[in-house]
């Protein structure tokens, strides 16, 4: 192994040289405005630190790839520590850069080893039993955490806002999971149903004065009806063709909302949508005529956090209903038929399953949950416009389902936390946060190509198998 060290050093030096050559104009110079024109400044310290980091980073990866576990691990830890240390580097990004290099080396080092250990543990019967036990309680633990979260000391307004956002996407992910994960119908226009739900609530509440709780089922039904409308023409399509048509459908809904000004007020959107009430009590400092505030009803002094906590519990409950529904329906004939349809449509026909009805129910049910989430969104934002329902939303929801592992409920939660939470938490990184986001996506696809949780849990568990009768 020692004999290879010179070649590794040479390789690392070459990499550093390439990085220096590429970086000299990008990092090495910096233009700034002096009033009557632009001038530039040198940033060779930054460039130097970056190049040195790249040198050691490359060396660490090399060490890890030839199996020198401990030196690579040590190098990674040292890099991580340097990055995290309170040194006064010229920019915060350099700190992040060095930490990232360290973390990547450590990950690269322990990955094969961790994989091997996991595989051997999983194969032993005790390990399998523990795994099942963990899987069972992991969900329960997450649920307990979610319920208690608003009372945690770190639950300030920013965190709660983010939590509500993540839960909205968890719910949308679970809803889309019915269509994509269970029934195997690739839907790229899911946001259309979210929009239908949102506009249903916005219009019914501002025009007819209906409350959130009475509109919720109506919005679900409206969205389900639109799901059927999309379902009929695409019954015969699959795969790429289905994806294109559903994408088009999503755009049609958005464009109609944008242009049918009489109905939707066009690009200006709909404002002053009332928030959800609790037994008729509103969450505001002063109640509108004929209503009372939450503070008046309960005697608890008013705080702006109450509204947020209430919204949090509503979306948590809606998401849990979606999850519960999916878990139950998988054991019913219709849910089984969805899964069977994803596996093999021809075989389904041979078994007497009506593929038309099966697909339509999948579209309608998936759309219904998007409709619920949409009316929640409208009630939370109190203002909606077609801007909120662009294609990128559909893509994010689909990414959550795919990255989570199609059909996996816990996987959707993890992916939503990662995809929605990560860009928010890394706001400090400024423009670089999307780079980190992209990196995270690439890493997931490299290491877990079938999603975070690719394992499909059978809908029936039997007792330990006896020898055949």
């Amino acid at each position: 192994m020692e004999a290879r060290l010179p070649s590794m050093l040479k390789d690392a030096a070459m990499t550093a040289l390439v990085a220096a050559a590429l970086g000299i104009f990008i990092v090495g110079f910096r233009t700034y405005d002096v009033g009557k024109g632009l001038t530039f400044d040198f940033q060779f310290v930054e460039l130097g630190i970056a190049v040195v980091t790249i040198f050691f980073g490359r060396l660490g990866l090399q060490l890890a790839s030839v199996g020198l576990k401990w030196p690579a691990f040590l190098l990674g830890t040292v890099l991580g520590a340097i990055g995290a240390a309170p040194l006064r580097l010229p920019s915060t990004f350099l700190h992040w850069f060095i930490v990232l290099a360290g973390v990547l080396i450590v990950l690269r080092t322990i990955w094969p080893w961790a994989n091997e250990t996991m595989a051997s543990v999983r194969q032993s019967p005790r390990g399998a039993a523990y795994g099942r036990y963990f899987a069972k309680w992991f969900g329960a633990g997450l649920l307990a955490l979610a319920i208690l979260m608003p009372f945690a000391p770190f639950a300030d307004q920013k965190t709660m806002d983010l939590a509500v956002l993540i839960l909205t996407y968890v719910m949308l992910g679970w809803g889309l999971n019915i269509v994509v994960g269970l029934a195997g119908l690739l839907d790229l226009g899911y946001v259309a149903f979210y929009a239908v739900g949102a506009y249903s609530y916005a219009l019914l509440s501002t025009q007819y004065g209906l409350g959130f709780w009475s509109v919720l089922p109506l919005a679900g039904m409206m969205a389900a009806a639109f799901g059927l409308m999309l379902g009929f023409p695409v019954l015969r399509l699959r795969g790429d063709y289905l994806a294109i048509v559903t994408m088009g459908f999503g755009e049609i809904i958005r464009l109609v909302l944008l242009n049918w000004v009489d109905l939707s007020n066009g690009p200006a959107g709909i404002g002053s949508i009332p928030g959800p009430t609790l037994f008729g009590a509103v969450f505001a400092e002063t109640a509108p005529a004929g209503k009372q505030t939450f503070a008046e009803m309960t005697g608890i002094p008013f705080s702006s956090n109450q509204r947020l906590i209430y919204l949090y519990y509503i979306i948590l409950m809606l998401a849990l209903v979606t999850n519960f529904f999916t878990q139950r329906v998988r054991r019913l004939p219709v849910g089984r038929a969805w899964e069977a349809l994803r596996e093999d449509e021809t075989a389904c026909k041979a078994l007497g399953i009506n593929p038309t009805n099966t697909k339509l129910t999948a579209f309608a049910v998936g759309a219904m949950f998007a409709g619920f989430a949409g009316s929640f969104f409208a009630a939370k934002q109190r203002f909606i416009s077609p801007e909120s329902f662009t294609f990128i939303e559909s893509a994010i929801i689909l990414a959550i389902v795919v990255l989570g592992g199609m059909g996996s409920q816990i996987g959707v939660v993890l992916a939503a936390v990662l995809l929605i939470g990560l860009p928010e938490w890394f706001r400090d990184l400024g423009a670089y946060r999307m780079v980190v986001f992209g990196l995270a996506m690439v890493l997931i696809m490299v290491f877990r190509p079938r999603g975070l949780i690719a394992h499909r849990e059978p809908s029936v568990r039997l007792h330990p198998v006896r020898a055949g009768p």
Partner: protein
Amino acid sequence: MLEVRGVAAFYGAIQALHGVDLDVARGEIVTLIGANGAGKSTLLMTVCGNPRARAGTIRLDGEDITRLPTYEIVRRGVAQVPEGRRIFPRMTVFENLQMGAVFADPAHFQRDIERVFAMFPRLAERREQRGGTLSGGEQQMLAIGRALMSRPRLLLLDEPSLGLAPLIVRQIFEAIARIAREEGVTIFLVEQNAFHALRLADRGYVLVNGRVRLSGTGKELLANQEVRAAYLEGGHA
């Protein structure tokens, strides 16, 4: 039980069946043999309504099922073991069998699944294993077991011996014989393995280019010079 009269079927513009007449009586094993592309599978699929017959009639116990959609035909007691087995690869053996019983009365689910496990003990051993991880023979057993879960009166089998080792083929054919004799299920079997199929069958039909060329009892066809020359000699020892 099954009565096919003058059935013609098309794939697009290509005519695959030219006026086929065929009968299957209750409790019989009837086999349909023929070369590749003779229209054997097409006929079996046409009985299931996919593709629909463009001319002629298909009757099941006297009822005209020619225009019914596949799922309606299946609900009238016709089960199909499709070509290439077509089990659900990501579902367990148990779930695959459940899929076969989607429209059956849940009350006798337990009894039915025990019958399938008794017939194919290998499936009982592997009941929690994913369908896609089974061997070819086990998948074929699963496909037959899945079809039996709907308690069919008429079982349609499309090339159950396809791609299987000779020993496994014999096991599969023994199982088919038992299904007919012990369970009283009428069987319509499409096969390329003419020797095994004709030995098993009460009667057989030979299909050539979408037309019935010969018919007779299994023994007669086995002894027939034309059949021997076309489908048996060299095909097997």
